[in-house]
């Protein structure tokens, strides 16, 4: 809990004024609330002993004034707390997002996208946001209210105060015990629900098997048993819940009974007034709410604490990229790329994803990267782009260590497509240009479209380049996605082009056209392409064959074929696959 509060503190500090206002309003509201019963006491006492109409009116107006005061303080406090909740949600999410997008590829290996999204969406908005302000500050206000009420009670009539406060410890203990039982029952219920959920999902996804084997009845029989289990759990929970709520909402009746009995006797003996008796009824009710808020604070605080830890894990992650040791801002073009014994460790263990890779590629060359699934091809490309810092060996660009180059400028010279072509919500134009407004002309865009073999496809889209694509737009075919990614990569005429399986959804002819156009438009570009196409591989200037992270073979097509090793196997198999046409599932 303390850790959570410490974590939240810097965020509160940013809004010091508003937080102070909230606290002040809390104190004012507590004071007003504690004063109200005093007015009632005055009126009731006055009525029982004939007061003047003016006195009555005076107190009635005071009640109205106090009511108005409470309206203003509570409404303002509530509004401000809500604003702070939302503001903190905004700021926390912004901070986390800004940090996460600078992380290296190792980070994204460690955390799946689904996990990251849950932490940045649900954990923040559902668990942390309410607690961040309301949770804590309602607790503070509750403490004030409790203090004010108890203070007033003791001041007015200590004996009555005792009547009200005496049952409280017992109520508290009993409610904690019931609360624990209830959590246990909740867990059981949750498990029953999860089982049902799994059952239904299995049933629906396997409905073909169930119907084919005529086993519908046995499914229903099993379902009956499971729903019966959920039913039992729900009923137990409902019963326990009502008992639990009694401790909060109804336990006041013990205090009231004590008040009537002891207090009534005192009034009869003239040692207390009727007004006090009635006023203390109201105090008894006043004490319950704050106690609830206090216990809520503990519960939501624990849940928020778990989420805060999860979010903090993201914020404290560090990227392996060491930036800014050098600042070789270069007007030079990249003419040479060299790996010397480069390697990258697996972030989730000790094995190496790639190990001891050495090769040299020069401008104008087209390098094919081949190998089985998991042999390290994508990792190689991501190293070339410095998406992760290599753990061993070195990488040289134009003869200098890549770490001496300014990262941003380096990446501006490189075009990249990822293995799963990334399409973002927006227009086609947005997806290709990607907000690179400076120095991008319509001409360049047109050229990129033509080279990527996308120009001829534009008529298929209702609004051409302005068609909205992505999750809320038109769905693109696999081949179209890849071509958009290629156009994106080629747009600024990069010196280096890294293509990760960027042509697999194209047919052989389109791919052929692409490579020819590419060579014509970008004769000096250095291209590293992960590919499976036989023709693309055999026409490359250099072929790198990866096997389990190591560079098994490298060279030209003819010489590798003659060697009769891994390359020959891969190449011939690929040719066969292509020969068979629409491949049988292999």
């Amino acid at each position: 809990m303390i850790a959570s509060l410490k974590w939240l503190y810097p965020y509160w500090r940013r809004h010091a004024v508003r937080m102070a206002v909230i606290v002040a309003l809390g104190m004012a509201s507590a004071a007003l609330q504690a004063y109200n019963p005093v007015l009632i006491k005055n009126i009731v006492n006055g009525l029982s002993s004939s007061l003047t109409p003016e006195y009555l009116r005076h107190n009635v107006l005071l009640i109205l004034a106090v009511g108005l005061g409470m309206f203003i303080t509570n409404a303002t406090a509530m509004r401000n707390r809500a604003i702070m909740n939302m503001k903190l949600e905004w700021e926390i999410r912004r901070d986390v997002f800004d940090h996460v997008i600078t992380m290296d590829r190792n980070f994204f290996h460690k955390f799946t996208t689904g996990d990251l999204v849950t932490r940045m969406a649900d954990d923040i908005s559902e668990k942390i946001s309410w607690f961040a302000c309301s949770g804590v500050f309602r607790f503070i206000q509750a403490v004030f209210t409790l203090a004010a009420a108890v203070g007033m009670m003791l001041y007015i009539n200590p004996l009555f105060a005792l009547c009200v406060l005496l049952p409280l410890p017992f109520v508290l203990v009993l409610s904690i015990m019931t609360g624990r039982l209830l959590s246990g029952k909740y867990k059981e219920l949750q498990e029953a629900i999860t089982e049902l959920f799994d059952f239904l999902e299995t049933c629906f996804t396997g409905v073909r098997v169930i119907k084919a084997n005529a086993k519908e009845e046995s499914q229903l029989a099993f379902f009956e048993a499971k729903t019966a289990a959920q039913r039992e759990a729900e009923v137990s929970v409902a019963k326990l819940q009502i008992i639990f709520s009694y401790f909060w909402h109804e336990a006041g009746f013990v205090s009231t009974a004590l008040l009537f009995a002891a207090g009534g006797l005192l009034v009869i003996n003239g040692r207390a007034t009727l007004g006090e008796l009635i006023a203390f009824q109201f105090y008894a009710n006043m004490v319950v709410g704050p106690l609830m808020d206090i216990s809520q604070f503990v519960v939501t605080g624990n849940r928020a604490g778990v989420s805060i830890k999860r979010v903090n894990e993201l914020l404290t992650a560090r990227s392996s990229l060491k930036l800014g040791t050098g600042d070789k801002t270069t007007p030079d073009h990249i003419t040479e790329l060299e790996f010397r014994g480069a390697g990258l460790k697996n972030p989730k263990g000790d094995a190496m994803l790639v190990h001891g890779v050495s090769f040299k590629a020069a401008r104008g060359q087209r390098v094919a990267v081949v190998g089985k699934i998991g042999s390290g091809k994508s990792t190689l490309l991501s190293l070339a782009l410095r998406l992760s810092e290599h753990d061993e060996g070195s990488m040289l660009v134009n003869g200098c260590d890549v770490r001496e180059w300014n990262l941003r400028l380096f990446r501006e010279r490189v075009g990249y497509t990822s293995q799963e072509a990334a399409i973002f919500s927006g227009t086609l134009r947005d997806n290709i240009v990607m907000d690179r407004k400076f120095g991008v002309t319509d001409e360049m865009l047109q050229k990129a479209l033509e080279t990527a073999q996308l120009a001829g496809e534009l008529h298929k889209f209702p609004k051409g380049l302005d068609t909205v694509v992505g999750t809320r737009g038109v769905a693109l075919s696999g081949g179209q996605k890849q071509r958009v990614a290629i156009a994106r990569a080629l747009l600024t005429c990069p010196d280096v082009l890294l293509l990760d399986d960027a042509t697999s959804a194209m047919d052989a002819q389109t791919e052929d056209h692409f490579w020819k156009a590419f060579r014509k438009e970008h004769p000096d570009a250095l291209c590293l392409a992960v590919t499976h196409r036989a023709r693309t591989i055999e026409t490359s200037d250099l072929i790198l064959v990866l096997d389990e992270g190591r560079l098994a073979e490298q060279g030209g097509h003819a010489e590798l074929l003659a060697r009769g090793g891994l390359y020959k196997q891969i190449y011939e198999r690929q040719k066969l696959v292509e020969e068979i046409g629409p491949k049988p599932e292999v």
Partner: protein
Amino acid sequence: MDDHDDGQDPKEKINYKAAFRLLYGLVMERKTPFAVAAGYMAVGTLLSLMIPVITKYVIDTALPAMSPRALLTAVGAYLGVTLLYLCFNYLQVAQLARAGQDTIVELKRRLLRHMLSLDLDFYSSTPVGRLNARVQSDTSTLYALFTNTVITILNDVLMFAVAFGVMFFYNRHLALMLLPVFPVLGLMGWAYASVTSPMFVRVRKIAAEVPGFLTEQLNGIGVLQAFGREADASSKMEELNKRKFTAEMRVELYGVIFFMTIVALQPISTAAIFGFGGRLVLEGKMTVGVVVMFLLYLGYLFEPIFRLSEHLSVIQRSFSAGHRIAKILALRPALTEPEKPHHLASVREGIEFRNVWMRYKEDAGWVLKDVSFRLPRGSSLAILGETGGGKTTVTSLLFRFYDYQKGHIEIDGTDLRKLSLGSLRQAIGLVQQDIYLFPGTVMQNLKLMDDTIPDSRVHDAIRTMGLDHFFKKHPLDKKVKEKGANLSIGEKQVISLARAMVLDQEVLVLDEATSNMDPHTERAITGAIRTLIRHKTVIVIAHRLSTVRSADRIMMISGGEVKELGTHDELLAQGGLYSKYYRLQFGEGA
């Protein structure tokens, strides 16, 4: 998770009549238990309404009379009444929970039974998550309606009637003065609900955009970093955050105003009661006890106002849920039993496809073109071909999941369409290796959750398949967690194969899956498949070399047509598609 994919087109009109008929029917089925609960509620509410009267008695009678006995009697009455109230309230909640749960469980079973009777078309057009939502979360919404909303509304109406009745009895003027406040509050509540409900919808929509945006950006993070787009992503996130903040703040403002106004009514009404009531007391027309009693009753009556907007929202959601459920219950399967079904006891001669043409829709292309083959009893046929080429469709036709348009499918010479679906599917079995396992034990999964199958049959099956060793390592009473996440892919495949033996049908359709696994499990699977092929008439959609080699004959389907059909040696000699595939798969060693 609050935001379920309702899967409902927001423009789709809700059929209130059908939904209401469904809901009404559900309640009427159990009118006695619900009536008993209402009874408990009425008694409890009446008891709780007695408390202000007891208070008045204390103030006006016991105290002025200075009678400790009267006072303590009143306190005793107060304690008694309260304890009784707590008991009746508890009884009411428990009763409602039971009645409500019974109703809902009944509905869930009805829904699942109906869904299982529908065609595969229904399943292919609806995502599993949505189906789940219908059976679980839509029914939960209705549960809240029955156990909470309806009874609370009845409770509130009763409370108003009795409270005002008593107040009128004691002082008509004051009661009349207070009466109009409540309809006004009711209107306010209704206005609040209708103004803010579209705003809440909008807030939920924007809130749902956040995970969508994050997923998209993080999935493409490599590309974003490669092109140096971090700053842009950051500003897009900022813009989304801002939109969410603004929308939520707007709704919240209405909320604050509405709720605080209602809260403010307490001091206002206190002031009003003391103001007017006080004057009446001074004029001797009223007693202090009555004034306090009015105050207490008013306190009771404010709670329902707070709950009003919540009730409205539950009612709205219940009608949506009821509408969706009614819609499903109204669906009818297209493929039904023939008029005079022929019962299939066993397959004696074999299965024959003759010139079968099939397409899914009138205007779609043919999925099967002139497919013909014979499967004599006891033999096996391996089907190969690319995805979407027609392999699965052939087997779907055999189970009559879909109908064919031209040609003949016959079992022992009888047209498939004349056979009863039940007997057909009991004679032919389907084994799919890519499946989830049910929550239960391995033993139960081997029986496909059919408890009428004796354990001995399972043990026999395991022995016949030579899987004793395997199941010693993976015990039969092991509990399956999370649809089989605690078992490896290989293990799941073995279980689905063993299941085929347990279910003991003569004819088997086996839909193989591809994956790499350890040689140990691979051997178990290969042996199991070989045993199945030996003991039964089998059609297998094959992916393994061993499976293909074990089959008597092989059929290659591509583009809906039978390209090659024959034994392994015949096809190899032909040097066509199959031989190429074979060489590719099994290289020089073959």
